[in-house]
């Protein structure tokens, strides 16, 4: 009787967790398995194993370009996000007038579909957009500056879309700092820059890095943005999709590329975690 009574709550808990697990398994885990298997099958076949898709992709010089491009875009936009978030959050934590509005503004890129943000940026930064109209006012700029479809332009797009991840964690870490610690540094003789450099930044670094992981991963797998604003530059996610765009769709080739992307992500994530654990000594 006693054992039964103890087992029941556990059973109930397991049952309650079942739907969540089912979804996780069915919509994430199993699809990943399918992709793995598919990546190892010859194109269009249901049987047989082959590594040709991996080999063919990795031996192309284009492959290296694609992977390099993806990394460059992700790393650059993550760094820009960190820099920008740091400044933004240091400003916002003094609660200037209207700071609530700006905190909300921080979230806007995450709430609207990436497509729309990209479209708006395309229009704004295009050769007829306001930014160029503004720049043309200056005498030393004779022609519209090409921002769209360039790598710096793409980095700008990525940063616009993905900096909220970093900003939110940075802000919350910053606000949880004990003000007495800054006052202690103050009294000890440190001016504002020294307090920032020696006390504030080291203490919020874990928060910044945690948020920047999300930014990096989102940028690494960015799909809708480069799809419409990448021009001739195609990072990994777009490469994957392009394989399916063929007729007949090249599922195996796409799967192979997806696995490579997943692997790279895991590798990078592990390295990042290692780096994160060290300062927390």
């Amino acid at each position: 009787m006693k054992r039964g009574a103890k087992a029941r709550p556990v059973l109930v808990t397991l049952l309650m967790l079942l739907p969540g697990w089912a979804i996780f398994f069915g919509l994430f885990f199993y699809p990943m398995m399918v992709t793995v298997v598919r990546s190892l099958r010859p194109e269009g076949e249901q049987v047989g194993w082959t590594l040709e898709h991996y080999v063919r992709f990795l031996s192309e010089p284009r492959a290296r370009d694609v992977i390099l491009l993806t990394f460059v875009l992700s790393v650059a936009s993550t760094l820009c996000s960190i820099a920008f978030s740091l400044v933004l959050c240091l400003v916002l934590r003094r609660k200037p007038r209207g700071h609530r509005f700006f905190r909300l503004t921080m979230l806007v890129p995450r709430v609207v579909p990436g497509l729309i943000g990209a479209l708006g940026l395309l229009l704004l930064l295009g050769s007829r957009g306001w930014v160029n109209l503004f720049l043309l006012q200056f005498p030393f700029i004779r022609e519209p500056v090409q921002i769209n479809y360039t790598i710096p332009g793409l980095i700008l797009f990525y940063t616009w879309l993905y900096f909220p991840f970093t900003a939110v964690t940075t802000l919350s870490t910053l606000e949880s700092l004990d003000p007495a610690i800054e006052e202690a540094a103050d009294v000890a003789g440190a001016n504002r820059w020294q307090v920032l450099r020696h006390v504030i930044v080291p203490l919020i670094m874990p928060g910044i890095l945690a948020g920047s992981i999300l930014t990096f991963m989102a940028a690494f797998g960015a799909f809708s943005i480069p799809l419409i604003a990448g021009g001739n530059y195609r990072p990994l996610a777009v490469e994957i999709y392009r394989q399916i765009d063929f007729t007949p769709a090249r599922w195996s080739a796409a799967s192979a590329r997806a696995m490579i992307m997943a692997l790279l992500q895991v590798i990078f994530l592990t390295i990042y975690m290692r780096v994160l654990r060290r300062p927390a000594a």
Partner: protein
Amino acid sequence: MTLLRQYLRAIVNARKLLTYTFLLCFALAIYLPFLMIVLRSVGKGWFGKLWLPPQLTLDWYRWAVEVTNIVDITKNTLIIAGLAVIMATLIGIPTGWAFGRRRIPGKELLMSTILLPRMIPPIAYALGVAQIFYRLHLINTHFGVALSHVAVCAPYAILVLSATFEGLDERVLEAAAVCGANPLRTFFHVIVPLILPGILSSMIFTFTTSYNEFTLTLLTYGKDTVTLPVRTYLAIGEGYWEVTSAMSVILVIPSLIVLFLIQKQVAPEKLVGGFKGV
């Protein structure tokens, strides 16, 4: 003395000026793209290097409605979002209950696992989802597309609902029992009102997530289940900026409305991913 004080005050004011200029530029950087879209959607004859369109018109919206069948598309989007919300909530409630009210070993790890589909870009597993759906004939069905959305909606729902259930104080239930309520009445009169805000909050999140979802839809849609994001993408490909802008405006308004409506009740971290420390 006063000169020094004035000088110091000027420095302080310069810092203030810099601060507000920075914030202004930040706000412009975020909101101008949307302004551009709106202007494009109502502009007529806007060629060449003009700041504003010479004429205003609603032609493009009319075009969107008539030619591109936007009403049907919106209907699709809403149906799919509705299905996704129902499914995600039905999954979120029991899972959230288990996480919130029961001690589970390795809860943090499990939570991170649940969030995995949101952290890993959808394109990675969308391929597999698409292939499975082809085999199950779920492609181009409202249910199929909604189901694929659940992959990214359910984590949100679980997150919000586990927080809701965690906040349900055991003692309130005990008090109800002491007052004489049997389990059924306790459920309806005490539990439901307490968890209703959380459920509503999760529904709102889930709805906007499904409404805006693009990548998964792109891989599971068909001609009967075109959603607003997908149609907007196709329109961008067609190159008519004006109509595309009109469609985008129609697409984005609900999200912005929802954001400003719920801003008071929600912690920003939840909206962004709920990732609590690495």
